[in-house]
């Protein structure tokens, strides 16, 4: 009985992983495939699709736009996240649960609703669609993720650490910088990285709110229509995957360090 059950789970999980990883594995396969059609059978090894990327000027513009948006989004949503996480874990204020629930709402709202509603406001107010409007939308959806990460960082702090610092004669301001900040620093780095990664890959809101300047996903969306562009898009996707995973590993490393610093056993993973 035990044996049968164990086998079932092993096989099931193995098949599941194949299903889960199928696209991620095909991406580099086609990126290095020496054929201008993305299909089997494979033709041979090449790196020319990566070279194509190097010489595509429009792509470079989109990358620059996306990086600018992602960096700005990461910084602002982390600042908003720190404020909200600190407030909600440390202080009691009226209607705390409803306020926090409202701030976390974008996490569960369909992105198309957020995209549409921001579009309506911007048009009604007569503003031009620009990279700035995308940044606003991205901060809105990234802030809840930042709060989730930062809340656990703030919550893991023993409140008496703060009191001890004040008891030993330090001011509140210095206490924040000397005790709290160093201890939540890894959480802040993780929050920056997560927000950066989400913003970099976000398409739905960016598609609604972008004006004449495309972000990277909007650019990719435009290129998907042209079959001859597909192999180089596979190369681009491969690069993005490597970048995302490196950022995540980095973020996880900082999260672990944060837990270690506050002296708590590591449990669970991301999110």
């Amino acid at each position, binding site marked *: 009985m035990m044996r049968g059950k164990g086998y079932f789970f092993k096989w099931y999980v193995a098949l599941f992983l194949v299903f889960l990883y199928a696209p991620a594995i095909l991406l580099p396969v086609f990126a290095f495939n020496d054929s201008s059609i993305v299909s089997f059978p494979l033709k041979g090894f090449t790196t020319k699709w990566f070279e194509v990327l190097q010489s595509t000027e429009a792509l470079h513009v989109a990358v620059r736009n996306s990086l600018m948006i992602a960096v700005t989004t990461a910084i602002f949503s982390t600042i908003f996240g720190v404020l909200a996480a600190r407030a909600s874990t440390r202080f009691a204020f009226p209607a705390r649960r409803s306020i926090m629930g409202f701030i976390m709402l974008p996490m569960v709202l369909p992105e198309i*609703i957020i995209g549409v509603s921001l579009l309506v406001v911007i*048009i009604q107010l007569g503003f031009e669609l620009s990279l700035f409007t995308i940044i606003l939308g991205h901060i809105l959806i990234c802030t809840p993720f930042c709060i989730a990460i930062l809340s656990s960082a703030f919550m893991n702090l023993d409140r008496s650490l703060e009191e001890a610092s004040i008891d030993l004669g330090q001011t509140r301001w210095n206490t924040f910088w000397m005790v709290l900040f160093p201890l939540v620093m890894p959480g802040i780095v993780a929050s920056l990285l997560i927000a950066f990664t989400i913003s970099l890959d976000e398409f739905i809101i960016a598609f609604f709110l972008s004006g004449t300047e495309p972000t990277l996903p909007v650019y990719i969306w435009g290129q998907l229509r042209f079959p001859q562009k597909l192999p180089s898009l596979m190369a681009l996707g491969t690069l993005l995957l490597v970048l995302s995973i490196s950022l995540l590993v980095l973020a996880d490393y900082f999260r672990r360090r944060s837990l270690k610093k506050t002296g708590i056993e590591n449990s669970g993973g991301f999110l």
Partner: protein
Amino acid sequence: MLLISPTLVFTLLMLAVPLIMVLALSFWTQSYLTLDRSFSLENYKTAWTEPMYQYLMARSLKISIFVTALTVLLAYPVAYFISFHVTPKRKAMWIFLITIPFWTSYLMRIFLWKVILGYNGVVNGSLMGLGLIEQPLSFILYNQNAVVLTLAHSWVPFAILPIFVALERVDRSLIEVAEDLGDNWLRRFFRVTLPLSMPGVIAATIIVFIPTIGDYVTPRLVGGPNGLMISNMIELQFKKANNAPLGAALAISAMAIVTCVTLVFVWMNRKFMRGPK
């Protein structure tokens, strides 16, 4: 209070105000380029009575429910495996392993399913190579099956996480008690483990259900003409058809339906949490 205010003000300005404006817009009407700001239920009448919209809405709901069911069914055994069959030290690594594919570019991921399921795709190629089929299967791409499969793939990591967390919280001695009292593995599972992990299942259901209704990229890329969903129509009204008020009414209607279904789940969750008296 002072600390929370910047975040709160931002969210109010960027979320509450826009949502209210969409609501307002849905009661206005537009002909070509002029916007009539008098109150009218015309858009809702169109959205709820016109067969095309009715049909799209029903199809979206159906696809989302299929996706949710498939995702949770796929996710549960994996979450169970990680929680019960993986040594505690390795659990974090497994969770990480589950989430990695999610960070492949969103558009690429969906597009690659087109490659996998396509006429000359991976599935047909391998099946023909193995001699199992002679003609490429055509029912696997550009239809609702493809949409369901692709969406399930997108959201399965988000279903695994809450179920895993709920399973981790199940007190192992409760399962041992059930065994001690004479239940076999299957009965133990259905009488103890599953009910206790139900909050996680409900959470997973909500997490998957809400965004799938709002997705318009997947139907566009792999759905074909019969796989389109309500979001594609909303997008069309806002962009090409240039009838934003109707788009707003459709969006509000979709959101209302999503909210109703979600409330049912939340209510079920409450009932489960309270348990029998």
